[in-house]
């Protein structure tokens, strides 16, 4: 009796899941699929949809930056390339000062890759590379480890002063130092979770509301459709903004590594 009841419950659940699968399945878009299976020993080096779209993002950036014409009166494409360059160059100059020039290529590469991945992910049917935390965490750890290494190279053990703000009375040090250490080590996590959560939440919201359009049909479907257009516009803003924030925070962390003393 109990088993049949359990079977019946699981049967209805399966039916509901199958039903849901057809209409709204906001997670499905984040699934990794192998496109070209490659196996070397125990290593799975298959080209996945994520890898493919990462390559497309790199290709799109290279195409934009390398093939944009260099006319005095810029074409549309050229002014896109130039304004991206100027945005990041201005940011590195403003945050890092004259020293920023050396770090500009790194910051620009990060910014351009994230921006391209975010924007390409908004094409219907495309895969959003930055919606997986493993990708954003890897990018953030490159920044974090790089900045830490640069800090120790520039200041030696003096880089530890970052954890001991000047002018703190001695009795408070046991509280302030752990707080500073934790606030330093949460940097890669806040950097990666911000980007990943923004992209994933936005795409799930788009999928769910798109499901509403199908469910409500011709009669009432236009209402969520209008919301969908508005949210899509917001997602475009978020895609650009999160790439900008990631690059800005990279600059700020590098600035901490270069100038500990203030």
């Amino acid at each position, binding site marked *: 009796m109990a088993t049949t009841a359990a079977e019946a419950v699981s049967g209805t659940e399966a039916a509901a899941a199958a039903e849901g699968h057809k209409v709204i399945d906001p997670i499905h878009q984040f699934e990794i699929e192998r496109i070209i299976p490659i196996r070397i020993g125990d290593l799975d080096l298959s080209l996945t949809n994520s890898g493919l779209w990462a390559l497309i993002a790199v290709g799109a950036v290279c195409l934009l930056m390398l093939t944009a014409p260099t006319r005095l*009166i810029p074409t549309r494409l050229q002014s896109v390339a130039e304004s991206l360059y100027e945005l990041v160059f201005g940011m590195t100059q*403003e945050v890092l000062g004259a020293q920023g020039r050396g770090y500009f290529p790194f910051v620009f590469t990060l910014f351009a890759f994230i921006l391209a991945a975010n924007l390409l992910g908004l094409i219907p049917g495309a895969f959003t590379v930055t919606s997986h935390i493993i990708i954003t965490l890897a990018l953030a750890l490159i920044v974090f480890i790089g900045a830490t290494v640069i800090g120790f190279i520039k200041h030696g053990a003096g880089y530890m002063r970052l954890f001991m*703000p000047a*002018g*703190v009375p001695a009795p*408070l040090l046991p*509280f*302030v130092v*752990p*707080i*500073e250490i*934790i*606030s330093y*080590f*949460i940097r890669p*996590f*806040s950097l990666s*979770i*911000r980007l990943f*959560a*923004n992209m994933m939440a936005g795409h799930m919201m788009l999928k769910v509301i798109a499901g509403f359009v199908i469910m409500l049909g011709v009669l009432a479907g236009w209402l969520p459709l209008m919301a969908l257009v508005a949210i899509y516009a917001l997602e475009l*803003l*978020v895609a*650009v*903004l*999160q790439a*900008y*924030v990631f690059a*800005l*925070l990279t600059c700020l962390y590098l600035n901490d590594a270069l100038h500990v003393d203030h």
Partner: protein
Amino acid sequence: MVAANLGLRAGQFFELKLMADDKLKDIERRIEQARLTQKGGDSSRSEEGSALGLATRAITELVVGITVAMGLGWLLDRWLGTKPWLMLVLMPFGFAAGVVNVMRLSQSKQADELMGGGKADSQAPAKPVADEDDED
């Protein structure tokens, strides 16, 4: 086209060159004008954008501060066998770290630019930092 250009007399040629110069000047003037008129709209749009950016930064600092500190405590507990205690000890530190990061964010150059008229505040960045440490 080339043949037609070659066929031009000297007078016509200079006239054309003047016209081209005028055209260039005109474009320069128009670019300058467009830049001036766009300044207002552009900055307000980017302000909205960076307000959203600041907001997402503040939220993640708070959430991630607690989460990472508790996660670290949980891992250390599992390693040392001191089940809930390190997690509980580290949680307030994580919260404090998140709050400190948000306070720093509110004193940053980006926040000052956004709030406008932040010049008076930004004159003494050392003092608020000292205050903040007293509160901890």
